[in-house]
C-alpha cells in the first residue's frame, strides 16, 4: 500500500513536472508521434490495398458480344463449347440483351435517355471469368478461335493489365512492408536517442541526488514515468495523425469508390490495435529511459 502510494506520488509529481515545463515534453512527444505514425500509416496503407484488391475480384474477364443474328441454337452451341473449356474458363455468365440494357441504364445513370433509342442497341453476351494465375498465352489460341466464331460479333478482354496490376500490387505491398519495417526500427532508435538527450540534460541532477543517498530505483522512477508518459502521448499523437489522415482521404476515396460502383470504405485502426499501439509506445518510452538512466547510473559508482 505504502509502495503503491509512493508510486502514485512520483507519477503525479512527474505529470506536474511535465505540465510546468511542457515545451521539452511537447517536442519529444511530437518527434515520437511523427516517427511512430509513419510505419503505422504505411501499415494501414498496405492493409487497405489488400482489401481493395481482394474485394475487387481481380480476375481476368472476357466479354463475348454475340451477333444480332445469333440464334438460340448458337447460344446453346457456344455454351456447350464453354463447358468443355474448363481448363481456362472458371465461370460463364450469359447476359441477355435486355438485362444488359437494364444494368447499363442503372450504372450509367442515363436511364430514360436510352429509351429514345427505341431498339436495344446492346447484343446478348457471355461473360467469362478466367483464373488469375493462368498466363494469357495459355489460352490465346482458344480466344482467337472464339473471336472467329460465326455468331460472335466482338470479343473484348482486358487480361494483361489485370495481371500486371496484380503483380504491381504485390510489389507495392512488399515495398511498403519493407519501408514500414525500416521506419519502425527508425522509430525505436529515435525514441531511445530522444530519451538519451532528455536525460543528458539531467545528468547533474542525477549525480547530485545519487550523492545524497538515493537508491538507483528511486532515481530511475521519475525518468521511467516520464518515458512512459511521453511514449504514450507520442503513440496517441501518432494515432491522431493517422485518424486525421484517414478523414482527409476518406472523401476522395468515397467518390472514387462510387465511380467504380463499389461500396469500398477506407478502414481505420481496429480498437484493439490502438490499445496495443498506445501500450507499445508507453513501454518503448519506459524501456528507452531505463536503459539510458541505468547506463548513466552505472558510471556513478566507484571502482577500485
Amino acid at each position, binding site marked *: 500500500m505504502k509502495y503503491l502510494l509512493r508510486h502514485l506520488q512520483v507519477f503525479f509529481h512527474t505529470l506536474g513536472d511535465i505540465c510546468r515545463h511542457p515545451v521539452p515534453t511537447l517536442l519529444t512527444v511530437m518527434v515520437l508521434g511523427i516517427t511512430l505514425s509513419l510505419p503505422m500509416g504505411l501499415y494501414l496503407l498496405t492493409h487497405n490495398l489488400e482489401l481493395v484488391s481482394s474485394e475487387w475480384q481481380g480476375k481476368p474477364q472476357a466479354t463475348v458480344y454475340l451477333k444480332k443474328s445469333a440464334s438460340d441454337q448458337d447460344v446453346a452451341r457456344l455454351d456447350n463449347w464453354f463447358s468443355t473449356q474448363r481448363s481456362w474458363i472458371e465461370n460463364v455468365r450469359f447476359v441477355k440483351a435486355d438485362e444488359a440494357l437494364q444494368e447499363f441504364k442503372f450504372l450509367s445513370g442515363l436511364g430514360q435517355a436510352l429509351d429514345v433509342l427505341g431498339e436495344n442497341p446492346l447484343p446478348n453476351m457471355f461473360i467469362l471469368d478466367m483464373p488469375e494465375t493462368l498466363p494469357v498465352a495459355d489460352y490465346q489460341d482458344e480466344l482467337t478461335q472464339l473471336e472467329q466464331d460465326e455468331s460472335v460479333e466482338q470479343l473484348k478482354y482486358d487480361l494483361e493489365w489485370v495481371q500486371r496490376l496484380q503483380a504491381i500490387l504485390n510489389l507495392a505491398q512488399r515495398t511498403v512492408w519493407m519501408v514500414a519495417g525500416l521506419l519502425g526500427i527508425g522509430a525505436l532508435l529515435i525514441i531511445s536517442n530522444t530519451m538519451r538527450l532528455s536525460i543528458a540534460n539531467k545528468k547533474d541532477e542525477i549525480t547530485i541526488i545519487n*550523492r*545524497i*543517498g538515493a537508491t538507483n530505483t528511486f532515481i530511475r522512477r521519475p525518468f521511467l514515468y516520464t518515458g512512459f508518459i511521453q511514449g504514450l502521448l507520442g503513440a496517441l499523437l501518432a494515432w491522431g495523425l493517422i485518424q486525421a489522415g484517414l478523414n482527409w482521404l476518406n472523401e476522395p476515396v468515397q467518390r472514387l469508390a462510387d465511380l467504380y460502383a463499389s461500396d469500398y470504405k477506407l478502414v481505420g485502426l481496429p480498437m484493439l490495435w490502438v490499445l496495443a499501439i498506445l501500450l507499445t509506445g508507453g513501454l518503448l518510452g519506459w524501456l528507452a529511459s531505463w536503459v539510458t538512466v541505468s547506463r548513466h547510473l552505472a558510471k556513478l559508482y566507484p571502482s577500485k
Partner: protein
Amino acid sequence: MIEFKHVFKRYPTGLDALKGLSFEISKDEMVFLTGHSGAGKSTLLKLITLVERATRGVITVNGSDLMSLPRRKIPFHRRDIGVVYQDHKLLNDRTVFDNVALPLIVAGEPHRELSRRVRAALDKVGLLGKEKMYPLALSGGEQQRVGIARAVVNRPPILLADEPTGNLDPELSEEIMDLFYMFNQHNVTVLIATHDLQLLGRYGKRVLQLYEGQLIDGFKYHQTA
C-alpha cells in the same frame, strides 16, 4: 567515527593521490583538513562518502567497514553523512524548500514530517522565509547556507565540507564556519577541508595537514584572539 588505516588511493591515471594515510576522528570531534592544491583533500573526503574506493588499506566510518561495503548499501551509507560542496551543488530548477527536502524524500521520510524538518534546518542556517525562492536568486553565501541546510536536514552524525568558504569573502566565510562549529556543538562529527588557515585559528580544533598525499603530523591551532 572515522578511521583510516594505511589507506592508499591510486586513480586509474596511475596517480597516487593518497599514500598510506592513517588517522582517527572520534565522535563529536571537529577537524580541519588542509594542504596544498592537489594534496588529496577532496580525494580523502570522496573515500569517506564512497564516491571513490580506496585502493588499499582499511576505512571504517560510523561502524561500517567501507572496504567491504557492497554497492547496494552505498546509498544508505551516504544518508548518514551530510556533505557541503564549494559550488553548493544545488538543483537550480527547484525551490530552496525542495532542495533542502531532497535528502528526506530520498530517505522516504513521511510527507507530514517534511515541512517541519525543512523549516527547522532553514531556521538553523538563518534562511527561514526563503523557502519559495530559487537558488540562483540567492547570494553566494545564502546558496551555501541552503547547501548546509540540505546536508544537516536529516540529522546525519557526520558532516563533511569541501572548501565550503572557497568562494566567499572573509566575513561570510566566518559566518559559515561558525555554522559548522554550532553543528559540532550539537554532537555532529565535522570534517572540513579548507585552504583558509587564518580562519582555522579561531576554533582551536585539530588540523590534519596533507602533503602530496601524506599526513604531516597532526597539530593544533590554538585560539589566538
